[in-house]
């Protein structure tokens, strides 16, 4: 049946991919304030790698992580601060995350629209000869 409902499978794979991307972005945004000691590595933002799927569609190829160095921030009031009064903040840029979130959301919505149109088209085809 894969050939008969090919559009549904193709768009379904895109929905899976965009959902994975949104989950990664959500995790990154959730940890935007995760401060670590300078002796530890910073929170690493997740970056999703995608590739085209054989036979149509898209799939997640793997996950990359951002720089574990993060950014050193001077915050002597923090209980995690070292002798120099510095802590390690994650290298997560909120504006980048939010623009990516818009792209992921729009991509998800687009593929839902494709599925809806395909379903309407299939159902119209069933009316042939009636």
């Amino acid at each position: 049946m894969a050939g008969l409902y090919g559009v549904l499978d193709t768009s379904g794979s895109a929905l899976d991919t965009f959902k994975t991307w949104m989950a990664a972005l959500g995790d990154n945004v959730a940890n935007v304030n995760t401060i670590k000691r300078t002796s530890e590595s910073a929170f690493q933002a997740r970056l999703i790698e995608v590739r085209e799927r054989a036979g149509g569609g898209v799939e997640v190829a793997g996950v990359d992580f951002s720089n574990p160095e993060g950014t050193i921030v001077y915050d002597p009031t923090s209980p995690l601060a070292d002798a120099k009064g510095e802590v390690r903040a994650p290298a997560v840029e909120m504006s980048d995350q939010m623009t990516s979130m818009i792209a992921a959301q729009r991509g998800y919505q687009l593929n839902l629209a494709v599925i809806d149109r395909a379903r309407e088209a299939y159902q119209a085809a069933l009316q042939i000869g009636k």
Partner: protein
Amino acid sequence: MAIPLVGSATSAALTSLQQAQSAASTAGTSAAEANSSFGDMVSQGIQSLDATQQSADKLALQAATGDLSDMHDYLIAATKASLATDLTVAVRNKAVDSFNEIMRMQI
């Protein structure tokens, strides 16, 4: 004169039935199975419909128990099951219509 007419009408009816059969078999199964009988084609189509419905049922159960990881997976499976059911019903209706048309034939 009447007998050749009946014969040509029957062959025309048979031809249209075969056309419906080949159209149905390309819709339901692969082209390699186009030579199998109409009954085989229908039972294969119903088996694949059953498989589609079972996968949708499995995801519906996961949705009910909270085990579903992706809600779109269930909705796509449900859409597929619904479309496959509609297609099977359409093929069956066409077959029954053809049969009724033959049964109405004056002999």
